[in-house]
């Protein structure tokens, strides 16, 4: 257990473990991206810089989700409840559906734009992550009234 003022970070709690996991994954993604940037120093082109910026935004989004979960825990509320679970389920379904079209578009672009396979795959994966984040934000703002 880690103690911080009146808040106890109980790592035996499964919800707390999940919240910490969000930070861990975000940290690993950031660390890997930093390594990639350091290794390609001086060789990074505009596409790489844009990709790095997008990764930064996605990490910020993950950190926001992690803090939101911890805030709920601190208030004595569950980190996840039926609304957050249904928003997550609908987000996953929507983003999967949109991702199918995204990959079709990527295949179309592949033959027309001069891009490495790695860059193309990276852009596709980032596109999927952005789609997920956007769907989550829209559903979280709009609500689930007619479900």
């Amino acid at each position, binding site marked *: 257990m880690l103690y911080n003022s009146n808040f106890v970070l109980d790592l035996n709690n499964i919800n707390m473990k999940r919240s910490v996991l969000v930070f861990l994954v975000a940290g690993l993604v950031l660390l890997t991206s930093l390594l990639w940037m350091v290794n390609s120093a001086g060789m990074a082109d505009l596409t790489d810089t844009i990709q790095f910026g997008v990764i930064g935004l996605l990490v910020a989004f993950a950190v926001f989700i992690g803090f939101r979960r911890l805030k709920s825990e601190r208030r004595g509320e569950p980190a996840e409840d*039926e*609304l957050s679970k249904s928003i997550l389920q609908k987000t996953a379904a929507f983003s999967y559906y949109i991702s199918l079209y995204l990959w079709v578009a990527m295949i179309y672009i592949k033959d027309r734009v001069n891009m490495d396979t790695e860059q193309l795959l990276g852009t596709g994966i980032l596109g999927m992550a952005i789609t997920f984040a956007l769907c989550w934000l829209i559903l979280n703002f*709009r609500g689930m009234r007619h479900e």
Partner: protein
Amino acid sequence: MNNRIRELRARHNMTQDDLARKVNVRRETIVFLEKNKYNPSLRLAYDIAKVFGITIEEVFLFESET
């Protein structure tokens, strides 16, 4: 579906945090319910009605009834 959660909460002198803790959901869920942005599960509707000591029909009003 409309509901009287805000009104009942005020009558029972209860905050959104209090109600959220009593029915074991996040405060945002209560906010969404009060803004009619979310239709709760039967279980949650039952729990909320139980907190106020009334029936589900007295808390949640279907559009055809309003």
